[in-house]
């Protein structure tokens, strides 16, 4: 069945014919993409023409479409928008063209180290970081003027607030999905551990991972999370924090919280404050990095043009536009110091000229987090690893630190060797 499917995909794709200078960009449906594509097409002046092929909004849908076509050796794909966790998988399957020479040098210039690490596999550069992202700790400065520096402190503050009858809940993404894996990975790394070894071949969950599991369990046991923890994704987390009668005191969430809370006209916006991800014990916080990379397909017949187009798409002014108008933090360090306003965003009728300062009041904390940020385990089987991890950790109330740790070790070991069955 699979065979016939793959062949069919190949046949369909083989039919399309395009002008020689057309470079296809398979990228998620994001509002800022048409603008940067248009900018590059104008600059290219006919040398190449980027055509944006919109992929679905959800990550699984994007990955599936690209994977199916690449597995069939489709030559119609030139540029691929990849979530940071997909690079090793695509690279190991030999679907990505390596960045070398001048192209590579241009990517390494000014790009932050951690995002660059997500684009690298086996010592080679396979993609160029387009944007990045980190979670921050958001809190209410009227409740806790001095934010917690560690999870232990946060749990204690929450306990005290609860005893005083004030909002106390610690919110994070506890639903059974990628967000739970991110939460776990940040905790493990902040405790000084790591899920997989650097080369992605061995499971390295140890006492530190156990500490992470203990913290997750302890919060449930003491009733410090929201009752809907096991349903909470990013949006639910921000939605449970915003109302005036919310019981939440802390949330671990992405920078969109700032704009979302402001736009929801939340009464809590005036006391909303943020800081970097808390540490565990004596270890500093190491938050999981997110974001998107752009890669050139190994089957592309226009690799030269594709590399040029990719470099254009991620150049500073495009990253700045995407950051300010699309809400995705840039991967170029210099943009975090940039204060120049840009022309109003496409479709913004107010004619407001925003700068990085307006859009990212939390930019220093993002940059600081990025310096120490942890990547998600780099392995070709990340998909398996993520599915299995979120399955085992859900719901967080069912975690039994020692038993769960052993189960994780065994199942992740299977996953890393691409053995066993996916749930």
């Amino acid at each position, binding site marked *: *069945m*699979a*065979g*016939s499917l793959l062949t069919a995909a190949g046949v369909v794709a083989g039919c399309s014919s395009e002008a020689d200078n057309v470079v296809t960009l398979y990228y998620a449906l994001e509002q800022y993409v048409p603008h940067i594509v248009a900018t590059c097409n104008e600059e290219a002046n006919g040398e190449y023409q980027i055509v944006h092929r919109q992929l679905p909004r959800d990550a*699984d849908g994007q*990955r*599936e479409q690209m*994977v*199916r076509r690449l*597995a069939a050796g489709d030559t119609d794909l030139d540029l691929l928008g990849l979530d940071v966790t997909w690079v090793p*998988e695509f690279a*190991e*399957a*030999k679907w990505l063209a390596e960045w070398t020479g001048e192209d590579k040098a241009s990517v390494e210039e000014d790009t932050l180290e951690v995002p660059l690490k997500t684009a690298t596999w086996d010592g080679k550069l396979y993609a160029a970081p387009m944007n990045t992202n980190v979670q921050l700790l958001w809190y209410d400065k009227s409740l806790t003027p001095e934010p917690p520096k560690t999870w232990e402190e946060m749990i204690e503050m929450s306990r005290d607030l609860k005893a005083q009858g004030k909002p106390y809940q610690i919110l994070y993404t506890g*639903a*059974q*999905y990628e967000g739970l894996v991110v939460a776990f990975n940040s905790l493990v790394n902040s405790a000084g551990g790591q899920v997989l070894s650097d080369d992605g071949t061995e499971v390295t969950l140890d006492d530190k991972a156990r500490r992470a599991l203990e913290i997750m369990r302890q919060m449930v046991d003491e009733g410090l999370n929201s*009752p*809907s923890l*096991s*349903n909470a994704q990013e949006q*639910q987390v921000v*939605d449970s924090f915003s109302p005036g009668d919310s019981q939440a005191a802390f949330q671990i969430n992405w920078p969109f919280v700032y704009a979302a809370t402001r736009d929801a006209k939340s009464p809590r916006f005036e006391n909303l404050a943020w800081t970097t991800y808390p540490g565990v014990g004596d270890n500093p916080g190491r938050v999981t990095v997110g974001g998107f990379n752009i890669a050139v397909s190994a089957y592309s017949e226009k690799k030269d043009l594709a590399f040029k187009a990719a470099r254009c798409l991620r150049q500073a002014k495009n990253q700045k536009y995407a950051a300010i108008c699309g809400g995705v933090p840039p991967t170029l360090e210099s943009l975090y110091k940039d204060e120049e306003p840009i022309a109003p965003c496409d479709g913004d009728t107010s004619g407001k000229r925003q700068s990085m300062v307006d859009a990212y009041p939390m930019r220093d904390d993002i940059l600081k987090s990025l310096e120490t940020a942890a990547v998600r385990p780099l392995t*070709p*089987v990340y*998909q*398996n690893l993520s*599915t299995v991890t979120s399955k085992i950790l*859900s719901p967080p109330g069912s975690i039994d630190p020692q038993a769960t740790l052993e189960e994780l070790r065994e199942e992740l070991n299977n996953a890393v060797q*691409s*053995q*066993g*069955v*996916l*749930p």
Partner: protein
Amino acid sequence: MTTQGPNPAETAAGSTAVAEPAEDAKRGNGKKNGKSALSEGKRAERRLAWLLCAPAVIVMVAVTAWPIIYSLWLSLQRYDLRFPDDTEFVGLDNYVAVLSSGYWWTAFGVTLAITVVSVAIELVLGMVLALVMHRALVGRGLVRTVSLIPYGIVTVVAAFSWYFAWDQVYGYFTGPDDAPLTQTIPSLLIIVLAEVWKTTPFMALLLMAGLALVPDDLLKAAAMDGANAWQRFTKVMLPVMKPAILVALLFRTLDAFRIFDNIFVLTKGQNDTSSVSMITYNNLIKGLNLGIGATMSVLIFISVAIIAFVFIKLFGTAAPGSDTEGRR
């Protein structure tokens, strides 16, 4: 094809190709009398029949048999698209991996449960609906049209409307802290509900065809003999309808066992709600593991074959596809 009563080709052979009493051929019992006389001409006819069938058979083999054989072959290999260099023949290792996996058996149990519960409910509701449609005196056309609407809606579209109805944020069946689609049992109930809502009309249609077989005279005679409505239903209607009921049950059971779209939209298989088709999709399309995925496909194929076999064995001659059924 061959079970659909006297073969027209045979009848034709009896009347034209061979000198045979025409009345015999018309009565369809030429076979019995003219065994030796028929043989030569019949053989030629058979050969022609095979030749005529050949193109269809070749196409069937190409589009059905080959993928099945290829799946079998894939299932005996370690074949993960992410590790193209590690592809190798591994014998039955994939079967061991799948059959010793808790995830597979959970999915299997979930699929069986959904199949049994939804088909049982559909049978009862479908029968009621069929009786209503059959007996409706006024607005029969309207009743039939209205009850068929759910079946006319694309499953994915229907599944999405159920999804939004039960969604935590937008759902009109749920409150803000109530998310039934994130818990196992409530999710399964909603999946069954969506299935039943969607396919009961199909069941009713098949059963209505059976109801048409029940002669009114028989019911009137039974009533005359003092049978009440329930007795007439169980002692007269059901036995006469048995073949139609079996067809309906077999179709729906096979269909329900392959449930995919409702689960895909409603829960994506989270919280132990995966069906066997769902888990196969996850391993094959998401996990890119052709070996394990093909193994699961083969296991589903075997399960479906077993279900069909059990139906035919258990219900004997009344079962669809058995020899005597068509010739009754």
